């Protein structure tokens, strides 16, 4: 199953001219700077913005093609707006029921109580939206969208209007959606950390055009794209908890290219986690350093190098198939005689556990 779309939209001086095909499963982040057309793209998918020339197909359902245009209320999608947009005249319960009641019983794939449970809304049901915090409102909005049993979930920076604390409170709920529901999510964001944490797939947008789309790790580490040159450039690694060292309180995490050691307890064994390794935290050696404080040393192969500045360059490595980025000085590259195909050891100073 995939989501296939082509939109051409002219609004004043802004043109959205986007064509893409992303898997209709997991979380696809629509990423790009402000004003690049992320929201317009989402609105076009929802049918809130009507493009004269457009094509949209999800699985076998064609929502737009030629003169065919399925009205938004006939599209099985959930839309979570940037600000929660709860109906102010209805209680939380009535807000949740609004969409739920309009879906035929046979099409419902989630019960009212399930959604309330999933987003922890039990104690809020009788409240009016005006008396909720920003994070609570967003949770209600997400549950309300889920209760329409959508085939596709659209989220327009649902965390943007929240402060860091509320954001941290809400993120686990969004991750639960990701883990517990198989529903595809199109998630708009301009925050790299959110994307790194949530997305499986990345759709990169710039000035109304699709710059690239692909699995998140590819897009994050491709040298022809801006993300691999960012100050915060890094790679994502999907790993599994494989053990815990009680003496030193270290968790071992297995992935395709070997094993990471994390200086904190993560449980239970077998749990899948996502790690982020920033390019500036990776250094390279030709031989396995025996006497070093660094625990994470992985055999790797140089794939490509590119100049970042007069002094620095970026190296893309393959660690058993997983890409990894390393930012090193040009001098070091010369001294180590780095070139594509060369075998090295990547010393990873710090690994961040996402979520």
């Amino acid at each position: 199953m995939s989501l296939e779309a082509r939109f051409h939209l002219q609004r004043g001086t802004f043109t959205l001219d986007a064509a893409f095909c992303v898997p209709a499963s997991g979380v696809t982040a629509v990423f790009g700077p402000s004003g690049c057309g992320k929201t317009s793209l989402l609105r076009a998918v929802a049918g809130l913005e009507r493009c004269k020339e457009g094509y949209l197909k999800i699985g076998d359902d064609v929502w737009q093609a030629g003169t065919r245009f399925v009205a938004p209320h006939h599209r099985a999608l959930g839309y979570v707006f940037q600000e929660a947009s709860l109906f102010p005249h209805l209680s939380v319960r009535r807000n949740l029921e609004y969409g739920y009641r309009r879906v035929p019983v046979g099409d419902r794939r989630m019960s009212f109580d399930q959604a309330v449970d999933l987003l922890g809304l039990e104690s809020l049901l009788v409240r009016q939206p005006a008396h909720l915090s920003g994070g609570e409102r967003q949770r209600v909005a997400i549950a309300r969208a889920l209760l329409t049993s959508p085939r596709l979930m659209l989220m327009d920076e649902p965390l943007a209007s929240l402060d860091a604390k509320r954001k941290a409170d809400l993120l686990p709920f969004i991750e639960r959606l990701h883990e517990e529901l198989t529903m595809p999510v199109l998630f708009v964001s301009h925050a790299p950390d959110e994307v790194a944490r949530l997305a499986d797939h990345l759709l990169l947008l710039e000035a109304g055009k699709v710059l690239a789309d692909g699995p998140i790790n590819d897009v994050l580490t491709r040298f022809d794209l801006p993300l691999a040159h960012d100050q915060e450039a890094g790679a994502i690694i999907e790993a599994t908890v494989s053990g815990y060292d009680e003496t030193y309180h270290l968790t071992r995490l297995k992935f395709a290219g070997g094993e990471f050691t994390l200086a904190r307890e993560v449980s239970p064994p077998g749990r899948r986690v996502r790690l982020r390794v920033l390019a500036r935290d990776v250094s390279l050696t030709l031989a396995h350093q025996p006497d070093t404080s660094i625990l994470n040393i992985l055999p790797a192969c140089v794939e490509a190098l590119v100049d970042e500045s007069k002094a620095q360059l970026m190296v893309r490595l393959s660690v058993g198939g997983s890409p990894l980025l390393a930012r090193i000085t040009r001098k070091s590259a010369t001294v180590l005689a780095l070139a594509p195909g060369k075998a090295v050891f990547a010393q990873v100073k710090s690994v961040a556990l996402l979520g």
Partner: protein
Amino acid sequence: MLTVADLEALWITLKLAGLTTLILLLLGTPLAWWLSRSRCRLKVVVDVLVSLPLILPPTVMGFYLLIALGPQGPIGGLLESLGGRSIAFTFTGLVAGSVLYSLPFVVQPLQDAFTIIGRRPLEVAACLRAAPLDRFFTVAMPLARHGYLTAAVLGFAHTVGEFGVVLMIGGSIPGETQVLSIAIYDHVEALEYGQAHLLSGALLTLFFVLLLAVYGVKRRLRVVL
């Protein structure tokens, strides 16, 4: 004390204002909705037409209505040719005149209320599977309830207070088209100041209480929203 004619005038006034307000709320809702959403060029012209009764001297409107509704006028003539009778100098004629005269007092508060809602709540409703009419009744109208309250009160009060238009097209037929404002005028003309005081005092009190109630309700609504 109030005479039978005064009581009849009071009843006719309330009936006229009530009926006019009801008709205007029904007609004004789609009109105000269209005005608040449309980007059509014709919208400006319609806006102006709706606002016209605000500034037009009531006698001018009354005069044109009289011509139009009379037996030789386009509307009166049409009614007669269809076997009806001219509605000039009838209660029906008064209602028709009042509807036009009070139009802006109902349409403008509704239009403002619909405009303030913006498109977001309706988009949200659309993404929750609500069809256009469904969205209107379950989202737009409840969110515009301030506007409905203002529109109803202004429409009602303005109809009760009208004088020029009803005089021109209604005459002052006791029991048929004589409304309070005209009855007061007639009392003053006949130097019956006592009666004029009574009716004027009654109207003043009625409006004061009405506005007080509206402001009270609006404050409560604001607390809820």
